[in-house]
């Protein structure tokens, strides 16, 4: 459809701010690179985020999901540290384990055959701080009917709490399951990449707190280069399981503004393996809606055609 300029909805888009109506001299696109290979699972990011953004607590529940009692990103959790305990061979399985591996840790007693000389790579404890991806093509932003969700001058995707009317459309449109409505408030919330701090040139709270530089903040273009180098370094060290996630500007969301270095398949961390922005198909959707509307109109007309009973 001609209203959609090329690349606005799908595919590589190198200047997302310009596409969103900002002048050429807008600031560079900012983002996160979360290197999970150095994450120690301390959850400082979760707390620093809440302290800065006044996000309420999200309930007290011992989940048994390793040390993850936060469970998932949501309206009151904008950073979420996943903990994955993987035993067995040191390397991640290429496809699947032959059994669903979402059992709780230790669900399969090993008994006498359990190896006792640990440090043999028999056990991996993966940690990863998840966050809103600030997609190049953001489903939440596309579907928001009020303009509450908008693209900032930094290329990030932010909910404006003074506008949001809590329609909830964004919730269904996020291919990562990030954004959600806060029940007692009614509005949608998610990571703002500390929009307010960015305006003053400050680092987002989570990245500032992160003790081990697992969460790195900066210009997206630079972060991508850094991530490429880090991946190369890890591959040279023989960490073949390392891969970048959300780095590729050609992927289904045009690349993430917050991307990751993972040590296993994305779904192991609760991430979709190949997310696509729903709006990629909006042209097709409207086309079919149009035809269907015409069909309905036609049915209406046809109903009055013919002899009168």
């Amino acid at each position, binding site marked *: 459809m001609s*209203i959609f300029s090329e690349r606005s909805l799908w*595919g590589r888009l190198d200047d997302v701010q310009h596409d969103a109506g900002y002048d050429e001299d807008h600031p560079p696109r900012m983002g996160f690179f979360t290197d999970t290979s150095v994450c120690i699972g301390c959850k400082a990011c979760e707390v620093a985020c809440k302290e800065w953004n006044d996000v309420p607590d999200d309930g007290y529940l011992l989940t048994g999901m390793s040390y993850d009692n936060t469970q*998932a990103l*949501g309206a009151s959790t904008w950073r979420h540290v996943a903990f*994955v305990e993987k035993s067995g061979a040191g390397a991640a399985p290429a496809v*699947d*384990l032959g*059994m*669903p*591996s*979402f059992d709780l840790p230790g669900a399969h007693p090993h008994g006498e055959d359990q190896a006792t000389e640990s440090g043999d790579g028999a056990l991996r404890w993966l940690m990863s701080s998840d966050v809103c991806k600030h997609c190049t093509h953001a489903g939440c932003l*596309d*579907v*928001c*009917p*009020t*303009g509450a969700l908008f693209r900032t001058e930094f290329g990030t995707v932010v909910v404006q709490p003074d*506008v*949001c*009317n809590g*329609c*909830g*459309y964004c*919730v*269904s*449109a*996020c*291919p*990562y*399951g990030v954004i959600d409505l806060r029940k007692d*408030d009614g*509005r949608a919330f998610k990571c703002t990449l500390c929009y307010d701090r960015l305006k003053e040139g400050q680092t987002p709270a989570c990245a500032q707190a992160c003790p081990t530089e697992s969460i790195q903040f900066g210009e997206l273009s630079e972060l991508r280069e850094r991530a490429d180098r880090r991946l190369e370094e890890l591959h040279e060290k023989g960490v073949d399981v390392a891969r970048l996630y959300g780095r590729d500007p050609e992927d289904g969301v045009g690349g993430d503004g917050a991307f990751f270095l993972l040590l296993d*398949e994305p*779904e*192991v*961390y*609760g991430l*979709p*393996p*190949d997310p696509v922005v*729903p709006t*990629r*198909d*909006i042209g097709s*959707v*409207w086309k*079919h*809606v149009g*035809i*269907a*509307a015409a*069909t*309905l*109109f036609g*049915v*209406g007309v*046809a*109903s009055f055609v*013919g002899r009168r*009973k």
Partner: protein
Amino acid sequence: MREQSMVPEPEFESYYGRQILKTPTWKTPDVPLYLFLGGLAGASAVLAEGAALSGRPQLERVARLAAAGGATAGTVALVHDLGRPERFLNMLRVFKPTSPLSVGSFILAPFASFAGAAAASQVTGVLPRLGRLAGVGAAAFGPPLATYTAALVANTAIPAWHEAHRELPFVFAGSGAQAAGGLAMMLVPLDQAAPARRMALVGAALELVASERITKKGLVAEPYRIGRPGRLMRFARNASVVASGATALAGGRSRVLSAVAGATYLASSVTTRFGVFEAGLASAKDPKYVVVPQKERLARKETGGAAAHTEGQPAG
């Protein structure tokens, strides 16, 4: 039908079996009702204008009221669903072609105004010419109103909805036609209800064909086949078939049968919307609907190279 998937249960990894997507926060019954009411109102507006043109005053009256009433009740349902209802007007803050809800708001607002004005004029007899003009407007906005709701659910990351984005508009168009036709069959004398019967019949056929195409989509369509949404979809289909049979055989002869068939169409239409809605919820709640198709797509991409991104690939 036994509840089982048509493809072998795939093996996949996930994070403690947790869902990847968020479950849509849209409330039941607000939103499925809204889907239904939009269809009813939109198709009724067409029916009303047809009736007006063809001189069927009782059909016109019922259809006009159905259009206005559906639009009003639908708007109420929609506003009620909002987390901040007082900010309903923010829906008109921008016009976003990427957001079916935004587009829908710019359809619903004029439609509701036109349909309301037309119905008011009809009922009160005031400003009949303007009322007719409004009726034309409503008829123009009616079909989009009835079908845009398909875009509303299709343009999401919910696999069961998104993967049906080509078919859902037709399901919704057919479902709307059934509802409008069904309601008129219930309330309009036999001699004026023929267009309503025809609309319901054709709508039912449209919906059945489109629904069938959806259910054949493999794993992503599994939620339409199993569990509660599966039962709802089967009920709706069966209801449509029964109502259509009755309508075709005796719809024009028996007032009672016509009314029963009409009510069955209505029930079918409502049930379809709940079925589609709940299939989406179920689809969001199980990570396999996200992981498995996406892994398959990645695998195809690896083997098939760049061709994978072309239109027509399931998006998952």
